[in-house]
C-alpha cells in the first residue's frame, strides 16, 4: 500500500541509507572521526576532507556520519517511549470514562508547555546526559500521542464491532487489545514518525543550546554548537551537520505524510488508480 507513491520509496531509501551508513561507519570511513590533525585546523572542504575540518583538525564528514548514531538513537528511543506511554494513556483515557477527566487534565497541563521549553527545563533540572535527554524529550512528546490515541479511541469505541465484542462479555483487556488497538494503529504509526522527526530536531536544539549531551559525544546539535564560534572562519563546519539534520528530518516527515495519505480512506480509490496504471 505505502510503496505506491514515489516519495514514500524515496523517503524510505534515504532513511535506510542514513542508518546503514552510520552503523557501518567504522568500517568504511577513510578518516577516523576522532583523529586530531593540528596542521589542518579549520581547513575548507577538499579531496581529503570532503566537509572540511573542525577546530581540532578532525574530519567534519566523518564526524557528521558518526554523529548520526547518537542523533538517530535519541530520535528512535524517544519515539518508541513516547508512543508506548502515550498509547497506554490514550487507550485508558478514551476507553474508561471515569479516569478520562483526570488523565486529560494532566495531559492538558503537559501540553501547556511548548515541547522544547519543557524538555529544556527538564534537562536543566536532571542534568545533561544522554539518558536524561531521552527522558526529557519523552515527557515533552508523549502528551501529543496520548491526545491522538484518545480521540481515535473515542471514534472507534462506538463502532458496532466494539459494541458487539462488549455484549458478548469479553473483558476490557480483550476488547481493547483485540478490537480497539488494531483500529487505532494507523494514527499511532503516523504520529510516531512525526515524533521521531521532532525528537531529532529537539535534541539538536538542546545540544546547540549547550544543555544537551556531553560535547565530547558528537551529535549534530553539539557539532553545530562548537561550529558557531568559528562561523565566519569556517562556515562549512556549520553547514554540513545542519544539512544532515534537514535531510534526515525531511525523510521522516515525507514518510509520515505518505503514511497518513496511505491510511486515509479518502485516498484508497486514488491509490487503486495508480496501481492499475502501473500494471
Amino acid at each position: 500500500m505505502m510503496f505506491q507513491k514515489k516519495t514514500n520509496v524515496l523517503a524510505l531509501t534515504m532513511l535506510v541509507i542514513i542508518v546503514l551508513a552510520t552503523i557501518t561507519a567504522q568500517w568504511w570511513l577513510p578518516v577516523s572521526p576522532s583523529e586530531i590533525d593540528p596542521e589542518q585546523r579549520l581547513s575548507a572542504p577538499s579531496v581529503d576532507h570532503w566537509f572540511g575540518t573542525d577546530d581540532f583538525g578532525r574530519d567534519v564528514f566523518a564526524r557528521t556520519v558518526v554523529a548520526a548514531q547518537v542523533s538517530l538513537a535519541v530520535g528512535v528511543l524517544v519515539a518508541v517511549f513516547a508512543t508506548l506511554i502515550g498509547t497506554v494513556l490514550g487507550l485508558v483515557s478514551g476507553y474508561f470514562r471515569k479516569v478520562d477527566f483526570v488523565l486529560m487534565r494532566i495531559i492538558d497541563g503537559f501540553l501547556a508547555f511548548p515541547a522544547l521549553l519543557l524538555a529544556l527545563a527538564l534537562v536543566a533540572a536532571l542534568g545533561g546526559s544522554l539518558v536524561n535527554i531521552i527522558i526529557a524529550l519523552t515527557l515533552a512528546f508523549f502528551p501529543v500521542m496520548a491526545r491522538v490515541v484518545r480521540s481515535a479511541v473515542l471514534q472507534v469505541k462506538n463502532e458496532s464491532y466494539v459494541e458487539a465484542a462488549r455484549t458478548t462479555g469479553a473483558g476490557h483487556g480483550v476488547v481493547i487489545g483485540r478490537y480497539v488497538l488494531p483500529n487505532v494503529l494507523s494514527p499511532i504509526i503516523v504520529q510516531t514518525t512525526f515524533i521521531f522527526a521532532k525528537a531529532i530536531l529537539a535534541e539538536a536544539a538542546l545540544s546547540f543550546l549547550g544543555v544537551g549531551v556531553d560535547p565530547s559525544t558528537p551529535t549534530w546539535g553539539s557539532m553545530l554548537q562548537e561550529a558557531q564560534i568559528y562561523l565566519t572562519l569556517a562556515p562549512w563546519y556549520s553547514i554540513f551537520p545542519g544539512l544532515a539534520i534537514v535531510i534526515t528530518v525531511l525523510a521522516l516527515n515525507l514518510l509520515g505524510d505518505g503514511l497518513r495519505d496511505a491510511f486515509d480512506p479518502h485516498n484508497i480509490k486514488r491509490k487503486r488508480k495508480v496501481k492499475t496504471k502501473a500494471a
Partner: protein
Amino acid sequence: MLQVNNLHVHLDTPDGTVKAVDGVTFSIEAGETVGIVGESGSGKSVLAHSLMKLNPEPPAAYPEGDVYFNDRSVLKMNKKELRKLRGSDIAMIFQDPMSSLNPVFKIGKQLIEAIQAHRKRPKKEAREKAIELLRDVGIPDPEARIESYPHQFSGGMRQRVLIAMALASEPKLLIADEPTTALDVTIQAQVLELLKGIQKRYGAAIMIITHDLGVVAHLADRILVMYAGRLVESGSAEDIFYRTAMPYTWSLLRSIPSVGGGERLVPIDGQPPSLIDPPAGCSFEPRCPFATEACRHVDPDLKERGSGHEAACLLSFSEFESLKEGVVSS
C-alpha cells in the same frame, strides 16, 4: 434562446472516463418552462452545469457539441464573457439549500453581492433591492432578516433566499437543479408555487431538473427524460404521462406514487449502466421488460411519435401500447 447541440461532457475519474452527457440536443425558448427528469447519475446535473460552463475542469471536459445562448457559444466564451452570462443571463438554484449559502456571511451581504455583480449601484439602493427581492420570494420581515446568517433560516427559507439571489439580475433563464429534493413535502409545494409565480412576474424561462416526475407534472410546458447521459423521450406533460412511448419513462411513472393512478408501485429492476463502458445497444436494454435481441445491438435515436413528441425506442408507438396493456392486465 438556449440551444444545446449534440453536447458531450466527459468526466475524468480514477476509474476511467465517465460519459456523463452523451450527445444531447434540445432548446429552450424565452419564457418557457422545461423539466428534465432522470434518476440520480443520469447526467442531468452535469448537463445543467454545462449550460453555464460551471463544471469544474478538470475533471470535466467538453469533447463534442456546444451550447448556444442567443446564438453565442457558451463553451467558447472567455472568462469575462462567462462572468457576464452567469447570473445576468442564466442563473442557477442548487440542490441543497443547507450548503449553498456561505455560512459565514449574512444573507444581506450575499444577496447584495449578487445584485452588484452585474450592475454597480449605490449601497443603499442595492440594500433596498435586496429587501424587495426577499419580499418577492415570501420571506416575512425582510428588513430584519437581511441581517441574519444562513443557519438562522429553515431549509425552505434558505431555498427562497437562493431563489431571490438568482433573480437579483433578472436572468432570462433560471436553472433549478433539484430545487425541492432536500425539502419537506409541504415545503416542496410552496417552493414550486413560488417558482410558478416568479415565472409570471419576471417572465424568465425556467429549467427544472428533478428525479421526481411529480414535481414537473404541473409546472413544465415540456418534459425531457434523461437516461444514462442521453435524452430518451421528450414531449409535453400529456405526451409523457398519457402517451408514454419509451419503456424507461413508463417504468419511471410506475415507480412513483399517485401519478400512475392507484396502481401498485413497481420499482425499476437493476442498476443504471456504467457510463464508463456503456452497453453497445440501447442503454436501457438490460433493465427493459420488453427488450428483444435487436435492442442489444441497435442504439435507437430519438424519433418523432407525434407533434413535438419524440422517443428513443425500437418499438413503434402501437407495439409499445399493446405490450403495456399486457403487463397492466396480468
